[in-house]
């Protein structure tokens, strides 16, 4: 059983973290969730990203979604957008790969070259 009191505690912590980061440009993680992405495993990727961000207490990262971008054979796909950097799109991402992308790219700023399918300014 979960309680609203627990949600209240989580919310307070999140609001404090947001205040500290006010004015900063957020990092964006975009998961492709068209039919093709979903069939290939986008939901597991989304879950892994949320768990990894929560586990590392990372704030200032926004998780969003997009539809099909026309590269269905590369699904599931995930894009990392850091302010002032090219957006990097990864293909054939699994839950484990998503966790590594969060650790290596989002946290440590090192692109995971072997899974990149596109990068754009």
């Amino acid at each position: 059983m979960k309680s609203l009191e627990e949600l209240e505690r989580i919310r307070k912590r999140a609001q404090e973290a947001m205040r500290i980061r006010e004015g900063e440009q957020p990092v964006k993680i975009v998961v492709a969730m068209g039919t093709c992405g979903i069939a290939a495993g986008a939901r597991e990727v989304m879950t892994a990203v949320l768990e990894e961000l929560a586990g590392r207490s990372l704030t200032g990262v926004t998780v969003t979604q997009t539809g099909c971008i026309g590269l269905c054979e590369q699904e599931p796909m995930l894009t990392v957008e850091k302010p002032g950097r090219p957006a990097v799109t990864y293909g054939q991402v699994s839950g484990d790969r998503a966790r590594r992308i969060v650790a290596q790219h989002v946290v440590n700023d090192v692109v995971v070259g072997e899974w990149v399918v596109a990068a754009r300014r």
Partner: protein
Amino acid sequence: MKEIALHVLDLLQNSVEAGASRVSIDITEDAAMDRLVVEVRDDGRGMQPCVRDRVFDPFVTTRRTRRVGLGLPLLAAAARQAGGEVKVESSPGRGTTVTASFGLTHLDRAPLGDMAATLIAVLAANPQLKLNYRYRRDGGETSFDTEAIERRMGSVPWGEPRVALWARDAIRFGLAEPPEPIPGPARDKGR
């Protein structure tokens, strides 16, 4: 799709793309009638009759990145192979309701799957969306209504990973003292 919950995720994406602000998801297991009914109702922009009549045609889509749309055709195939069917009600400005039925004990019915993971995947990426989920079976009902929770607590940042994961566990394991669900316009429309 391996789970009905993945079809629901796909339907919810359609609702998001149709600009919905409220979506209700109702799942009913009826053992006496041997039916599993999944209904997704949104208040998005809806479809013209000429579009609605062709949603099961895989070569009809509004998207421009590729020219086939497989979401509803796949759902229709999954329902049909389990002795059920899919109905789509929609009109411009009045939203869309998709109702899929399955034979509950049919051997070819996909498992319901992880609805909690489906719902938070949508919620985390669309924190403004009001989600109202109800799951009914003989002898029990679970529900999760983001709007009812916010009415009690004020605005909740559903996009925060920890908040989204709390919501997942609340859907899976239940919520102590859940706030009364709010009967919304999306639900009583046209009934």
